[in-house]
């Protein structure tokens, strides 16, 4: 979060782009256009985040239209699978929905002598979803914590088991809350735990789902359900509720403008982790793929997948971190 905020704060003025209505998310016009070069061949093997699975696929599809002979293989079983595959060199890209942990950095450093490099590729809002018929407006973090966690690190006195305790009335007051979440290999699981539950433990009654879309579908078919997932997976059957950091604080809806200002408490970068030896040059395949991601076309794919594109400035910084300057 702090990393996210610091980068976002530096560029938020540019980001707001003076766009009055955000009904349509637009791509920063200052991003470079991608132009294909010659000599790009090989295998793109991506192992990592499920949240970014579709986005990786879209990028790969876009990239393949320019380099038809690049082979693409994408696996998305959770962010925690990304560093081990990079270390064992079974993949060359590791999409992750969270920053690497120091343990993962250390394991990587032990093998290669330097830390993995993470590039912020796009912005996601981790949304808390309820069924479309649920009248609830929003929840504060302590409330979310009391719903999802058994440790209640954010200080609620008692746990919230019924919708009535979260402020609903009528038939909802006595309805039990049914919880949906991700499995523990997922970066979303870790991120939500760290930021919304104060690192507390999940309750045992959380139904752990194998994918982001499965969480949304679970909530869609369960009237009293609540779950968390990336904003890109929103469907017409669920509602993303507004969140506030403190009890009684201002509720911030899950809309793009608040993602860019960093006000929405669960906005985060989606990272691409690569094995980059500091000071060296990436080989053509990885270099061009990364350039593609940070181009107008690549960021258009981000919009296509329902996430929010980064700005030209973030892109420039990310590219510079792997020694791409043109």
């Amino acid at each position: 979060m702090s990393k996210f905020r610091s980068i976002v704060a530096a560029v938020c003025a540019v980001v707001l782009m003076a766009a009055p209505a955000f009904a349509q998310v637009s791509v920063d016009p200052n991003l470079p256009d991608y132009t294909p070069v010659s000599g790009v061949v090989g295998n793109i093997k991506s192992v990592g985040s499920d949240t970014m699975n579709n986005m990786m696929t879209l990028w790969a599809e876009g990239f393949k239209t320019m380099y038809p002979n690049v082979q693409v293989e994408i696996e998305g079983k959770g962010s925690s699978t990304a560093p081990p595959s990079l270390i064992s060199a079974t993949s060359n890209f590791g999409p992750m929905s969270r920053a690497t942990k120091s343990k993962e950095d250390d394991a990587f450093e032990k093998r290669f002598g330097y830390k993995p490099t993470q590039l912020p590729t796009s912005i996601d809002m981790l949304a808390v979803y309820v069924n479309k018929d649920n009248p609830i407006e929003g929840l504060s973090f302590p409330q979310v914590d009391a719903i999802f966690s058994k440790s209640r690190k954010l200080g609620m006195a008692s746990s919230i088991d019924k919708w009535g305790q979260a402020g609903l009335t009528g038939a909802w007051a006595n309805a039990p809350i049914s919880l949906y979440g991700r499995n523990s290999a997922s970066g979303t699981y870790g991120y939500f735990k760290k930021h919304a539950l104060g690192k507390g433990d999940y309750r045992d009654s959380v139904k752990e789902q194998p994918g982001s879309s499965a969480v949304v579908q679970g909530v869609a078919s369960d009237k009293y359900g609540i779950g968390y997932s990336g904003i890109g997976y929103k469907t017409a059957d669920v509602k993303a509720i507004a969140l506030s950091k403190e009890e009684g604080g201002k509720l911030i809806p899950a809309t793009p403008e608040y993602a860019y200002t960093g006000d929405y408490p669960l906005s985060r970068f989606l990272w691409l982790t690569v094995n980059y030896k500091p000071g060296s040059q990436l080989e053509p395949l990885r270099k061009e793929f990364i350039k593609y991601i940070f181009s107008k076309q690549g960021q258009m794919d981000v919009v296509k997948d329902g996430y929010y594109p980064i700005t030209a400035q973030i892109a420039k910084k990310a590219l510079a971190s792997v020694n791409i300057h043109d």
Partner: protein
Amino acid sequence: MSTTLKEPQNTPALPREIIRGSMSARKKARGNRGGRSLLAKGEPMLWLTGGGLVVAVVMIIALLTLVIIQGAVTFWPKPVVQFTLKDNTIYMGEVTRDDTYKPEPGVLNSLPADVQADIAANEGWAHRELVRTGNFDLTNTHFHWVEDFNSQGQTLPKWATVIERNSWGRFYGMPKSFLIDGKVVADTPQAAWAEYIKYHDEVRERWHERRGLEKHDIGRESRKVDHARLEMKSALLEHGKDSAEYREAQANYDAIEAQVNVAYARIREEINALNAENDRYQLVMETAQGQEKQLGLAEIVRAYPANQLGLGGKISLYLSRWWEFLSDEPREANSEGGVFPAIFGTVAMTLIMSVLVVPFGVLASLYLREYAKAGPMISAVRIAINNLAGVPSIVFGVFGLGFFCYVVGGTIDEVFFKASLPNPTFGTGGLLWAALTLALLTLPVVIVSTEEALAAVPGSMREGSYGCGASKWQTIRRIVLPRAMPGVMTGAILAMARGAGEVAPLMLVGAVKLAPELPIDGVYPFLHAQRSFMHLGFHVYDLGFQSQNAEAAKPMVFTTTLLLICIVAFLNLFAIWLRARLRRKFVSSQF
């Protein structure tokens, strides 16, 4: 399990006769022996066993009906409906499903009194429809719920057109005008549509030509460079930086790169010319909300004015969608387009697995049954094999990943593909490893059924053969194996059926979300056993649980399931046909 599939002549023909056993006879018997208990007469057991069968059959039929109905309607074109809401918002799209529900009190109270009364009269139930409105690039959503009490009414606009695009999902709107070179050549829906019909085929043809250029011609050139680059790297690894070999490889690489760059430029020029020609034709559409959108004709896969289609038009559209589904590559993160790579991967993997598992299984069971002396060792082996059949499939997946991919594959990479490291060649999931893992998984099935078939060959036949002076192997080869062949084939069929439907271990050893590169193609060495592949079973899982546009992917889940069932059934039928052929051959040659 194998007993159920045994050939009819082996099973006693009695039961059917008994069941038929003419009701009248039994009625007579009942009258005569009125004093016996109900159970002794056997009727309750008849009902119980018959009932068990009925439940099983009903469940199978229900499952198949669900899959077939849901899967078959996916591609049927629906009308495009325009809803006008009370606040004058307009939604236009296809109604995908509807729902009767009880609105929340908060929602109810905000409604006008007459609507509230209507809903109250309906015992609090209201109706709503889920409309696929598409136009994701303009609205950022694919679907909207429209409540009946919120809607002023619905119409079927005559020129409402559905457009399936290469990207961004579907587009719903009205044709407004048609541009060639930026000049308006038609400005009514009818005229624009006529122009679209006139030009679309040739534009798409050019688009396919372009894709062919990208795929084959550019591919050929890039492979040349790649090959030279790997040679250069091998030379570097083998001979060091200052060697003559490395310098030579480097010079060769530079020469080839220069050559290829020229070729690239030429192909790019061709592609650009095709693109430029295609970009001349633009269809301008107007959404129901009045927004205008210009669509390049090359981007349009298929378009149709949904509300003007007759039955013939609908059928041809339906078939064309099926054809695309079966023969094309997936688009849009697998939620659109076809599943051809997945069909291909499923069939290729299953066949390779069968080729691997059947010989091994037959050899192992021949030793167990014909050569080995019965004893505690053999019993232990047999028990182990039987237990292997009960091990959860994911365990095999873990073993395959740990042993085949990392140990065997990793070693192969170290030895033969050093130049392309750290990118793995064999040291990761792939077709070969998946087939081997599934071969292990299905090995017990083959061994057990082959053993049973071998045991069923009468000992007198073997003795007769020995009596004529034949050796052990000659006896096995000429007498035992032909008699046991149908049983072996039964084992192979069961193994194939199990292997084709297995998904869990494949997720670990090579089935991936997207791998449009087929594992068998026209590029040397033709069979690329190291490549990851797509699998229909995994595709179902991916569509159901991973898809971003979950609502649109749901019907595709059923369609893909239907296809998977058909393919497994087809593979089984093929094997059964093969078995019947073999049996005829051996029976006729025996006497």
